[in-house]
């Protein structure tokens, strides 16, 4: 009990520190005094503008998206009892990516700033419906249907890249696909937040069922668990969370895969107790990655968030594999 609360507390503290740091750090550094002043003051000075219009929405979005990815990863790994499950598994993030890419491809995004996220959300919900229509009734069929939907949406994205009328169009799509929080505003927060919070509430209700699933599907059902209902709840919850996250920030990998792994040993491997710490840690990891990408510039350009999480996440994952190999029977 205590170690479980400890990891949640530690992740929460790291989150708070990183949140304040990501408000202060950037091309213009703000001291804590300036931060406090900017919050309190009523004048439209530069510090206040940077804080309230640039950094605060970006940090809030990082917390929402990182938390959503960490939570989805923990729930999916619990549902599938497979430590390799990650939020992209059900085809939802690919669907969101395809939706946004269509908006970019046809130039809708240039005419209307929120075309990409709105089309991304639509794509995520369509992908979810398709996965459910083909995959309902079994956990394995759900994964397979998700893989098929992912492949289909991926093919659509490749097609758009291939047929892009000019190099700058293709570049725009590539940039978006890499995932980023650059230039995101409060409008993006208001667009994503209701979906992510709604999805998170739905996913939080699955905790008890995930514990029962430690015994396998037959025993879990014998304990009164309605597996069909659980699968639908997880699919909708993940679609809302990951769909909205991908729609506003592009594809961001590894967070949802790694966060549950990191917290699991601290909560005695109990699936229900990974949810909260994994959410907090996912948020902290994404905030940290965004902060690092912002500070570690390469020829003046920020390193894209999706690229950074993959770059930083992959070596960590190798380490995890090595540890697993050492402890496996």
């Amino acid at each position: 009990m205590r170690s479980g609360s400890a990891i949640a507390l530690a992740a929460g503290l790291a989150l708070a520190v990183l949140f304040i740091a990501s408000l202060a750090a950037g091309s213009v550094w703000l001291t804590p005094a300036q931060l406090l002043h900017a919050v309190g003051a009523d004048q439209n000075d530069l510090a206040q503008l940077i804080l309230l219009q640039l950094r605060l929405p970006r940090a809030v979005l990082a917390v929402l998206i990182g938390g959503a990815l960490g939570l989805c990863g923990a729930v999916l790994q619990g549902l599938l009892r497979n430590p390799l499950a990650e939020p992209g598994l059900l085809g939802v993030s690919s669907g969101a990516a395809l939706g946004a890419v269509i908006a970019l491809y046809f130039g809708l995004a240039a005419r209307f700033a929120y075309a990409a996220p709105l089309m991304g959300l639509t794509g995520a919900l369509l992908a979810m419906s398709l996965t459910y229509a083909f995959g309902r009734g079994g956990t394995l069929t759900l994964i397979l249907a998700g893989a098929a939907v992912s492949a289909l949406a991926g093919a659509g994205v490749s097609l758009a890249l291939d047929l892009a009328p000019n190099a700058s169009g293709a570049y725009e799509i590539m940039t978006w696909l890499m995932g980023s929080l650059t230039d995101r505003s409060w409008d993006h927060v208001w667009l994503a937040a209701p979906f992510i919070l709604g999805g998170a509430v739905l996913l939080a209700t699955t905790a008890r069922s995930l514990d029962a699933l430690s015994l396998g599907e037959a025993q879990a059902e014998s304990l009164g668990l309605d597996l069909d209902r659980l699968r639908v709840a997880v699919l909708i919850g993940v679609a809302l969370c990951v769909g909205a996250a991908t729609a506003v920030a592009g594809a961001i990998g590894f967070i949802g895969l790694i966060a549950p792994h990191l917290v699991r040993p601290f909560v005695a491997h109990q699936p229900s107790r990974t949810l909260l710490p994994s959410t907090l840690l996912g948020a902290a990891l994404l905030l940290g990655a965004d902060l690092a990408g912002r500070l570690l510039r390469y020829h003046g350009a920020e390193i894209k968030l999706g690229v950074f999480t993959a770059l930083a996440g992959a070596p960590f994952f190798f380490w995890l594999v090595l540890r697993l190999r050492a402890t496996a029977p």
Partner: protein
Amino acid sequence: MSRLSARDVTVRRSGRAILNDVSVSLPAGAFVAVIGANGAGKSTLLSVLAGLLKPDQGEALLDGQSLATMDRKALARRRAYLPQTPRCEWPIAVERLVALGLTPSLPAFGGLPADLRDRVDQALTALDLNDRRAQAATTLSGGELARAMLARAVVGDPQVLILDEPIAGLDPRHALDAMGRLQGFAQAGQLVVAAVHDLVLAARFTTHILALKKGAVIAFGPTAQTLSAHLLREAFQVEARVAGEGRNSVIDVFAPTQP
């Protein structure tokens, strides 16, 4: 006192009848061995009796009430089910695994209430698992895991206990122990239904034999009167000698029946 029954149960899978018009009524306090050749329909019948599989025709009833109309959680509090070779998928502690058996009695959120924690302690003690309670369930030996799963099944004090091959893979000592415990639960008033392949242990410990062949019941009755050389020939196509009674039963299967 609970009575579990099947009424005209038929289960079909891709056109073939796995169970064909099975009717049987099992009283509380009985320890029923379900026997039959591989593919005879034992596991399917147990799934139907546990309410996990809805038959294509007919119904399973607990005290006259159809399982299909019962609330999932209410049913889960009254009967426990263990599938063949149950596994634990995460390295959770044995006491956590046993506590999962109380899932249908738990509130939607929050930890384990104090009175339920006592139940876990009792189940751990009853199955000699006290020195294993903090150990990860995935590191247990086969015999210990079988005991832990049995503790998980009985921790909620169910009226009906349904087990699919509970002694498969256990060494002779652990198999004897397991059958003895199941007999104890039946003597305490629970209904225990188990698919069993070890005919000697079935003869020694169970009160009733339910024999299946190709999805149909070919015999059901008190063990001493039902488990005969004639039945074994019909159910398994083997020649056997059956001798003794109760704890002294001996069954020697010596040759396949010539067609």
